[in-house]
């Protein structure tokens, strides 16, 4: 099918060259690359903060950094990782690159707005990070009032404005995706032929447009309270700080699903590929994405069990929280059922799939512990919570992002990376991650609170384990950076369809041409038709591969 001697046309990476051509591009693929570069930079910055935090926690005494500096470190770690890395990661990079291709369109519906969203993102990020110079930020990423609005003497106003601006980047991305999926599908590309990655990103976009504006106005209210004395949450004039938490979590709980839903979409693609089977229960997986997005808006109060929210409301939120487990479980079961009796290939995507499923399972189930009101009273604000959300956001979100990046790297760059190294790094990340965060479950269960730079000596062993794990994890991430960069220059040329995958994106050359398709394709097949998929053709067989039947 994909003849090696096939004529390669100039790809989107070719002319026009030069910085200006890239910075003014309207090509969704180039914008995805711009996003990829920027989120990598912010990931490195956020990781730097995390490394300092873990170094401080090696000893029980607060000896490396002061309490004040520690507050600023964990705040900026959270802000950078959540707003500038995790939220844009999969949607703005992989989604931007592949949604138009997967549905058979030449670009997103609004290419200029797509570029604008990247600029807004960068401007918001630069403004937010400017607080590093202007006095830091010590509110935690949650900006809880009244500390943020009255008490904190760090530069909350600037950070709030930065986050407010960045919010518009998410909104614009989300609304571009929604319009694109509704209006730009190729003939024959019905809703139930869409790759599940598109469904997942569509659900994510719903959260972007329905949730982000609420947090935008909330941080704007905090900024107005600090800067203009327009007190909304100020208890001195009769305001209710709990209202801030309501408004904040109305977005920020769904935001957790912004970080995991696209990851679930990536895993759906990968799991079908490594099993070489149609995904089990396609429509259930598709609708579970929508269900997660909707139910995600009904549960925010489970972050507020120990605030002065009424116990009755807490009960309601606690019960609804249990519902979220249903669509998440549907996905996990269906992935497992897809793998069952599949022709499993031992390529590197499998390692990311298995890693994701294990880590997401732990993260998801511990979420149920925390959603149970009685238990949460004890575990609230302990390391148990920290471990839980890192399992979801890093164990789930980042693993899925890296899995997707590895899977699509040949398509995006036209180069292959080293398979053995990819497997090694996937395992390093998996074991390093567990070593970092599993001890934190135990620490939290034993009662170690989060956000302190010092702790009682009996917690030291587990904390040292955690820091050791972070070093392994960091090594894994660093290794990935190295071999992916290396592949750009020395990697073998990628064939059009190295994994033998289905989908329009794999029928294009690697890397694709500027407008993706000369002629808009007509789709006649269901998604994941692996019965008729071509065999995988990795450029360099990394390990003796068992030849699988098709």
């Amino acid at each position, binding site marked *: 099918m994909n003849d090696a001697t096939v004529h390669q046309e100039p790809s989107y990476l070719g002319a026009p060259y030069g910085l200006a051509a890239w910075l003014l591009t309207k090509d969704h693929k180039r914008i995805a690359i711009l996003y990829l570069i920027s989120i990598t930079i912010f990931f490195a910055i956020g990781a730097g903060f995390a490394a300092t935090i873990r170094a401080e926690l090696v000893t029980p005494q607060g000896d490396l950094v002061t309490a004040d500096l520690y507050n600023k470190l964990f705040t900026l770690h959270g802000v950078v990782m959540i707003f500038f890395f995790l939220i844009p990661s999969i949607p703005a990079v992989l989604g931007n690159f592949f949604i138009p291709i997967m549905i058979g369109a030449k670009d997103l519906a609004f290419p200029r707005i797509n570029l604008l969203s990247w600029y807004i993102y960068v401007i918001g990020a630069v403004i937010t990070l400017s607080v590093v110079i202007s006095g830091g930020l010590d509110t935690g990423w949650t900006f809880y009032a009244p500390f943020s609005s009255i008490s904190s003497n760090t530069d909350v106003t600037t950070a709030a404005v930065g986050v407010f601006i960045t919010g518009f980047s998410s909104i614009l991305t989300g609304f571009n995706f929604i319009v694109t999926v509704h209006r730009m599908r190729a003939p024959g590309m019905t809703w139930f032929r869409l790759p599940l990655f598109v469904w997942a990103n569509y659900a994510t976009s719903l959260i972007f447009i329905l949730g982000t504006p609420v947090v935008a106005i909330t941080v704007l209210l905090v900024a107005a309270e600090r800067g203009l004395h327009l007190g909304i949450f100020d208890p001195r004039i009769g305001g209710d700080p709990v209202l801030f938490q309501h408004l904040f979590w109305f977005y920020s709980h769904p935001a957790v699903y912004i970080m995991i839903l696209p990851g679930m979409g990536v895993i759906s693609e990968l799991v079908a590929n490594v099993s070489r089977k149609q995904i089990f229960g396609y429509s259930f997986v598709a609708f579970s994405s929508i269900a997660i997005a909707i139910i995600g808006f009904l549960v*925010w109060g489970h972050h507020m069990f120990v605030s002065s929210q009424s*116990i009755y*409301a807490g009960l309601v939120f606690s019960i609804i929280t249990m519902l979220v487990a249903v669509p998440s479980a549907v996905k996990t079961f269906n992935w497992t059922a897809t793998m069952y009796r599949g022709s499993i290939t031992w390529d590197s995507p499998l390692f990311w799939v298995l890693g994701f499923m294990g880590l997401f399972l732990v993260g998801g189930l511990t979420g149920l512990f925390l959603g149970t009101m009685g238990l949460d009273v004890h575990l609230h604000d302990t390391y148990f919570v920290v471990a839980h959300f890192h399992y979801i956001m890093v164990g789930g979100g980042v693993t899925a992002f890296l899995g997707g990046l590895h899977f699509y790297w040949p398509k995006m760059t036209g180069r292959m990376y080293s398979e053995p190294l990819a497997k090694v790094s996937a395992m390093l990340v998996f074991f390093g991650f567990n070593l970092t965060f599993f001890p934190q479950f135990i620490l939290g269960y034993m009662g170690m609170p989060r956000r302190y730079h010092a702790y009682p000596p009996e917690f030291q062993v587990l904390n040292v384990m955690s820091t050791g794990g972070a070093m392994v994890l960091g090594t894994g991430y660093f290794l990935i950076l190295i071999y992916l960069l290396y592949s750009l220059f020395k990697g073998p040329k990628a064939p059009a369809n190295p994994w033998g995958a289905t989908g329009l994106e794999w029928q294009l050359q690697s890397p694709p041409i500027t407008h993706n398709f000369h002629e808009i394709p007509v789709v006649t097949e269901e998604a994941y038709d692996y019965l008729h998929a071509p065999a995988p053709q990795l450029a360099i067989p990394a390990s003796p591969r068992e030849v699988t039947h098709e």
Partner: protein
Amino acid sequence: MSHQVPSIRMYVSVFLALLLFTATTVWVAGLDLGALNTPVALGIAITKGSLVILFFMGVRHNTPLTKTVAISGFLWLLILFSLGMNDYLTRGWLGIAGR
């Protein structure tokens, strides 16, 4: 969406209806209806908003998708309001101090 051009007459009558409702809402606010004042005021505002959405913004002749989108924003507001007030209106129900 439809490409038939609505008549000026239709626009002007909607405009007059909106003016009439504005006068009504001011007049009703002057009456003491007890607890009913706010629901009546909101009812009038919702009617006016719907007139603008249906006629001025042309949703009346639009695709079901646009109608869904137009409604969804208000539905989501209802989620925010109802689950939020589910806290404020139930504080103290269970007889636990401060909750």
